[in-house]
């Protein structure tokens, strides 16, 4: 595979990109063996769009997402998030970013088990230092179709419902970027569809920027564009993807 994709990079982090990586590498490992999970990746995720990140297992998708969200330190390169250089941000700054600028949705739903759906959503607001507006919480839960489940605890909800609570929690602070790692990975087709429609609505109505890692071509097809990773390198890019094309490219990469 010799395809190299070059993205034109402006010198300044443009307001048009929600997240931008410049020459980012991330290595893991000890003295004995180092794994280069990301290898000189330059990439920008435009504001108000939904980008899917695809690739074979172990290609570095999650690492890319973690680095972009400031959850992981990069070994080299620079990361801009919501117009700020977070490459060397300290913990307080990153905490602040998590409170205001980013939201997360993960494959395992990561709700706090002891709190109800409503309380899980409200916790994000509380940590962001915003006055907890009960009606806002209710509205957001209603937006994800869970108005009647506000008082339920995670274990009383189905996987799809838990994931929608997670999305509501990720969204309630109106973050600049929503990061999602395999958000439909643990869901059946129907629940997955509901979640994807929800994300699509957010992009369309609120110009929400979304970075989503997935290995499901159907999920990727719901996004505005797809980038493909292999061995820590970006090897392909598709705009307005269709599920069939995505599946073909992926099969090609894995083959």
């Amino acid at each position, binding site marked *: 595979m010799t395809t190299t994709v070059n993205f034109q990079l402006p010198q300044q982090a443009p307001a048009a990109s929600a997240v931008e990586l410049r020459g980012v590498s991330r290595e893991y490992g000890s003295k004995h063996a180092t794994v280069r999970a990301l290898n000189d990746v330059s990439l920008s995720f435009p504001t108000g769009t939904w980008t899917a990140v695809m690739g074979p297992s172990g290609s570095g998708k999650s690492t890319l997402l973690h680095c972009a969200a400031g959850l*992981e330190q990069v070994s080299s390169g620079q990361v801009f998030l919501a117009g700020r250089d977070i490459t060397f941000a300290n913990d307080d700054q990153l905490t602040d970013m*998590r409170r205001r600028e980013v939201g997360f949705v*993960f494959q395992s739903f*990561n709700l*706090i088990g*002891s*709190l109800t759906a409503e*309380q899980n959503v409200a916790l994000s607001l509380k940590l962001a230092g915003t006055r907890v507006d009960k009606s806002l919480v209710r509205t957001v839960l209603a937006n994800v179709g869970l108005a009647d489940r506000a008082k339920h605890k995670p274990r009383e909800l189905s996987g799809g419902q838990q994931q929608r609570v997670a999305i509501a929690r990720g969204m309630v602070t109106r973050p600049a970027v929503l990061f999602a790692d395999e958000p439909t990975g643990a869901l059946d087709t129907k629940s997955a569809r509901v979640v994807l429609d929800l994300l699509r609505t957010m992009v369309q109505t609120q110009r929400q920027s979304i970075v989503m890692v997935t290995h499901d071509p159907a999920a990727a097809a719901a996004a505005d564009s797809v980038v493909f990773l292999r061995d820590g390198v970006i090897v392909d890019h598709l705009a307005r993807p269709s599920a069939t094309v995505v599946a073909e490219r992926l099969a090609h990469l894995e083959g």
Partner: protein
Amino acid sequence: MLKLSLRTFAERWQLFVGSIITVMIGVALVQSSLLILISLATYEPPASIPMLQQIELANAYEGGIALLGVTTGFSVFLTAFIVSSTFAFTVSQRRQDLALLRLVGGSRGNVRRLLLSEAAVLGSIGTALGIPFGLLTMELQTNLLISLQLVPEGFTPDFQFWIVAVAIGVGVGIAIAGVYVAARRASKVRPLEALRESGDVRKVMSPGRWIAGLFCLFAALAMTILSALLPSVGAMAVGINAALVASIAMAALSPVVVPLVARIFGFLFRGGLIGTLAQANLRDGVRRSAATAAPLLVLVAMLLAQWGSSETISDGAAEQARRDTRGDLVVSTQGAAVPAIARTSGVELVSPESQVPLTSTFNEVGEVEEPEEPEEGEAPKAPEPAEVITHKASAVATAVDPVAYQRTHVVPMAEGSLADLRGATVAVGAFDTEQTIKLGTMIEAKIGDHPVKLKVVALLPDSIGGGATMLLPRDVVPADVLAAAPTQTVVHLAGGADQGAVVDKLREQGGEVTPMAAWLAETSKKNDQQQTKISTVVMGLSGLYALIAVINAVVIGAAARRREFAAARVSGLRRSQVVRMALVESWGVTAIGLVLGALAAVTTLIGIGASTARITGSGGVTIPWLMVGLVVLGAFVVVGCTSIWTALSATRARPVTLIGARE
């Protein structure tokens, strides 16, 4: 934030209830021991009873004070140890929750404050329960002391209101202090850890833990050496603390040992599925294994150190008595009967030892400082007057016939000689534990109602288990006091005399007659019993507390493993196999606790053994094998049962219900 932690209560109740229980019992123990101690310390014997009894009673109380001092010390130590290790453990068990809090925007400060305020709440609840529970404990402890005849019948400790402040300080203070380090560490959790199942990926042995562990280890060894060199009184005090410090060291360093024990286990159970899994779990859950082993370790260390050293000491005392005492019979009578014993045919020599009450004052003269050289043109300075401290003390002294005494007790004096024990003189022994008295010191004493000035002519050698407090020549004791004094007379039989006939004759004259060998055995048995009583008081309730902490740690450790157990079942293990896996694993932890606890106890036993050997010139450590056996058996049974029970209850739900949802 606190609301979040209260919410969490329902989910993690084992953790919180466990924490509260440790605080509650700790507070109760400290409060109870302290109240009894204070009541003993402020006790005045009634003036209406005879002098000798007054002094004996005061001595009994003094013994009680020393005993309760040790008991209180142990309680405080255990409470600090158990509460802080339990709290730290619960925090480490919630790492993933805390990472999640960080992921959704919680700051380090948020996490720290959450944990600290939680500790304050749990500490307060524990204290609030501990204060009334402490009153019950006090009743129990007092009854124990009375039934063991360590304090007089009818002794009732008083409640003091300031104890509430102490209890709060102990309960809330230790909880917060214990959680502080753990909270700082937990607040550094990376948000990403919320996404991993791996638990705490950071090294368990942090540099701080290494430093603390090694520091305590060296401190314990230093104490061992010190206790080997100190006189008997100090040796016990320093020696017993060596095991405490060593158990902190062992607990801190235990994670290093876990993989080693895991490997041994893997070898023992090689090939078997359960053994392999248990070995892997031991290694993977180093922190959990270490935290569960910690209370067991300290329990074992304290039990073995206390019992081992008290048996060593009482054996040493018996050995010393056997070696130093010469005679055929011991006759117990009043002082007045001594001449009749001496006149009995077949008796060659009598050495009477009469117990007489004595109150005294003496002055300790400090070092005289040399005046500095006067400077040019200045008047020479007057020498500073030496500092004089006046001591007052009462004691039961032993009135002896110095010549006969030297033939029945063949032991060289530390300083001076019993040959000079004539007239208004005294030889000082255990009376002067602080060693302030020197040869030539004048002691103003009152024997009965008769004032005398006694010159110190000899210092008795150090002796295991006390020995005589002071020796007086019989002729300084007023005749009436002497006649009424309880007296033990050591008798040498004349060559060829028939022991049976002499015994019969002495019995006819009235008096309890015991052959020397039997008398020594009886004394040694009484000593043993006394030591056992003391150990029971010191370790009884503390031991129960540590035992509860052991159970607690097993419960807390299993509480967080429901999903892990469920995953094991989903991958094909039967429920009984999961329970067996947990059992084998918990026995691995038990073995770690036992071995490390025994190692910690060794520091005490070596110190006390060396000190005993030095003083008696022979012997060494007595290992209480019965106790060791009971402890080993008990530990495996208790930990095993708890672990079966917790594993059963953690696997009660069908696995699928746990695999999906986060707990």
